[in-house]
């Protein structure tokens, strides 16, 4: 699973917090590119879509806090 998160919209700290919380689900890796944070994790294909979507919402929740 790979996600591209625009740095202007998704603050790095919020993404890091979300990754820390989701470590129970999978081993997430973060990579910095020019405009994006690349979030990747090895997830079972059956659950990939669900984990990706829930993670995105979770990050929004962390930003909002």
């Amino acid at each position, binding site marked *: 699973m790979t996600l591209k998160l625009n740095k202007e919209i998704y603050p790095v700290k919020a993404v890091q917090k979300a990754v820390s*919380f989701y470590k129970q689900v999978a081993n997430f890796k973060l990579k910095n590119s020019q405009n994006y944070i690349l979030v990747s994790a090895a997830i079972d294909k059956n659950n990939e879509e669900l984990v990706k979507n829930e993670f995105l*919402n*979770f990050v929004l*929740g962390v930003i*909002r*806090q």
Partner: protein
Amino acid sequence: MNNIKIPKIEFNSEKTGFCRFKKIKDNKYLLTNDVGEYVILPHVKFKKFLKGEIKETDSLYPILQEQGLIRDRMNFPALISENQQKNLFLWQGPSLHIIVVTLRCDHKCIYCQASSQGFNNKGYDLDVETAKKIVDVIFKSPSKSIAIEFQGGEPLINWPVVKFIIEYAQEKNKTEKKNLELRLVSNLSLMDNGKLNFLVKNSVTLCTSLDGPEKIHNMNRIWLEGNSYQNAIKWLTKARKIYKSKLENKFRPGAIVTVSRFSLKYPKEIVNEYIKQGIEAIFVRPLTPLGVAKEQWQRIGYSAEEYLKFYKTLLDYVISYNLKNPKTRFHENFAKIILAKILTEYDPNYLELRSPCGAGIGQLLYNYDGKVYTCDEGRMLDEDTFCLGDINKISYNNIISHPTVKSLCLASCLEGLACDQCVYKPYCGVCPIYNYATAGNIFSQLPTNERCKINKGILNFIFEKIQNKKIKEIFIKWSKFTLPIK
């Protein structure tokens, strides 16, 4: 891909004071201010308000001005005083102190959140020495009012320690001179005349569970030694007579309802039971998925929508009872607490509906083994995450300055959460432990939070009803049943 057009917002920065707002039914807007005053405006008036076009001759103007919504006509001394009054609880210190005198119980309630132990199990009783230390710490609280509440398990199982604490606390209070309140929460299975007379003599408020008519009560509250409902009614009736004659009804014994899945079909029957027993108020709260309730949730739990359907039917029924019987004092307690926040200048200091919540700063729980927890919910988890220490090793200062207490304050301070934008923020509260129990995080994702949905649903309903003149009069009457903090 559509490009959504965003029109210009017409807004007068000189005239428009601070408010939270929400569009409600019939194209109206509900506005609230920081101290919980509200006004409901038709759409057209709301737009005029935003543009600063409400004239001084308009009947709305004095209401808006009084609430601080007309920015260039604010009465600062009045607004400061109102804010002060509403936040008085911040300076009090813990006022509610729950002592779990035993974890043993003789009931097997299907929703037990305390994870009670069997009657004959050993090692679950509070001893006198630890009880003494607990009371000593309780009196360190700077709060002028202290309420000591006995809980369990079933507190009457450890009657000698209950008796000791009552006597010791009253002795200590001769010098401490606090406004001391003693409360006992009991299923009444072990009540007898001797205990009842002692409780009356020492002005101990009694509270029991009454989940509704016999069938519903006994379905929820299983007592293998007898009929839980009949026993509870017998002693509640007796207690109410004695308290009325000896204490002039000052410490009226009461009851609370715990709503399980089996209760959902019977809102009116539950209300009728309370009216039949002459109990002045019914306190309806949703089940929290803690303890046994969490394990059994599939069987006994329900969604926010299901609970709201039940609650609205129940509240409607209580309102219609009040309309038909104008002299009655019968009311629903949770609604009363919210109405006190909406309709009076006081805050009833209900620990679940305040910012920050009461964990550690409004209440503390002292467990049978000497462990101190932030609150009742804190001890119901099957872990010590919210344990602040051991009463034998920890001081009062250590307890209230514990990092866990600070974390819970942060997580329940509505001003720092998405709640700050909500129109219902002045009336609401967050339980970080509920969030932790349901989502593994003391900070919640609010739109998916069932407690948030329930509170919003109830507030939507109350504000719908409050627009009816006759119902508003009933609500005003109820709101005055709550005493202010002094």
